[in-house]
């Protein structure tokens, strides 16, 4: 059941990220094209790119949490006996869930409300900036969800699949 939810969630968020990264690339290339070839630089491309990267980065952070791709220092924990390690992992996800809930969901919602209240509109696309920041509470919700799933997994199942390759840049 839980695995099923996670699978559907992963699929949805992952496709969204793939499409966004593709659009993002085309958007900036369009900007270069309009300046060099059309000699009439596009006015909205930069704004769109920044708005999209906020969404990609925040939703991607939730996906990365689900995959265990965030960079951490696992040296000391790996020295612990199996049982204690799983317990400490549950604690870690609990802390992350609390952080996601308070800062991303509650703080983020307040942020969106206050910016929408100010009525700040982006100069070239004319989008309410507050709506762009909706990415914060939404990704916070998914982060909390992924943490809860990870906690339940560790609570019930004895062996956990290993984390994937971590990529530093």
């Amino acid at each position, binding site marked *: 059941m839980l695995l099923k939810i996670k699978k559907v969630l992963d699929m949805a968020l992952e496709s969204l990220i793939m499409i966004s990264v593709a659009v993002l690339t085309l958007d900036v*290339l369009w900007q270069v094209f309009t300046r060099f070839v059309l000699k009439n630089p596009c006015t909205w491309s930069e704004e769109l790119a920044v708005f999209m990267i906020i969404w990609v980065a925040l939703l991607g952070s939730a996906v*990365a949490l689900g*995959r265990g791709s*965030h960079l951490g220092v696992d040296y000391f924990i790996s020295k612990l006996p199996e049982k204690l390690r799983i317990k*400490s992992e549950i604690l870690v996800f609990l802390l992350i869930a609390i952080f996601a809930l308070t*800062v991303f969901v509650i703080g983020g919602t307040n942020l969106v409300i206050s910016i929408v209240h100010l009525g700040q509109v982006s100069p070239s696309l004319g989008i309410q900036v507050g709506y762009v920041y909706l990415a914060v509470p939404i990704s916070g919700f998914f982060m909390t969800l992924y943490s809860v799933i990870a906690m339940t997994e560790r609570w019930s199942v004895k062996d956990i699949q290993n984390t994937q390759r971590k990529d530093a840049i």
Partner: protein
Amino acid sequence: MTWPIIVLFASFFLLLLLNVPVAFCMGISTICAIFAMGDLPAFTAVAHKITTGIDSFALLAIPFFILSGLLMEKGGIARRLIDAANALVGRFRGGLALVNILTCMLFGAISGSATAAVSAIGGFMVPLMNKKGYNCEFNTSVTVTAATTGLLIPPSNVMIVYSLATGGMVSIAAIFIAGYIPGILTGIALMVVSTIFSIKKNYGKGEIFSFKQTIVRLLEAVGPLLLIFIAIGGILLGWFTPTEASAVAVLYSFILAVPVYREVKLKEIPRLLLQTGVTTSVVFLLIGTSMAMSWIMASENLPQNISEALIGTVNNKILLLLIINALMLVVGCFMDMTPAILIFTPIFLPVIMKFGIHPLHFGIILIMNLCIGLCTPPVGTCLFLGCGIAQTTVSKVMRHILPFYAAMIAALLICTYVPGLSMWLPEQLQLVK
């Protein structure tokens, strides 16, 4: 040290020991520090700091350089660079090790990440070197250390992160150009060590190519290497911003990898896009929460306090740089490069500037230092990736990699105490204010 700062660091280290991802360590400890100030929990302010941290067009170069790096990694570009390098340095004793190092440097000159170099070049060179009788652990050491030169030779994603961490005091173009000489110097230092070993172990010489063959192989590599002129040249000539240059790099490496070399199939692209998105998110969340953390550190005057304390006790530049180097070497062992840059740049920047060290020079020192950290256990992304690819273990590699550490440290010390190596090129191109 004020009470909130003590809480900030204590909670940060505790969380780090627990293996809380570094991005969340910074966020949670920021919240703890705000509690310690006796303020209301400023959840909204922290959320705001995180979003404004990633709300930047300049940062967009990071996902694009990641994507172009992935395309180059899978797109058969490394192999063409290997062929060209082989024609140039393959003939000497221990030639394949030299080829490996030179290829890493060339790959670094068109891609911004070290992990792409380890898997693209190591995946091909290590088995080849094993077959030719080179020691497997030696091969792993060569690949892993040489791959980090790509972080000094532009384009480089960690340099974009550094430029951001200085608050724009150092432009991306300036730090890019500053990296060329230190990167090449590190590469030469690694070549010297590998040659000494090759002579000692009597490793073979590679084949000698005729002049015509050499030219043919070099021409094959012109396609990939043209990217240096398009991306870096484009930035220097003012054609592109670094972000636009990185998007053009994506287009160019896509064209090479998909229709020209036909090594990447179109249906593989979505997976690469996803990997780009996730890797980017990891970096961006780090940037966001580090902005929140450095906001707390700044509001508690931590950088100023540290610089005052240091000026009181350390009175010369040489000693200060030695202390910072030693500290960052230890940090680099335990922490990945991006979080280390984001955490320590705002702390040390005011200090080094008081001592008359240029932020550009400091950036190069910091990156060279943390490059060594990428190759050291317990946390060394390149080392672990390299060991995985070579199918060996970290403990077996350790004995062989030590001389390469020595080479990297030697290059680091030279660049630390000869600022001109970092400053001369950007000054010539008038990129330094």
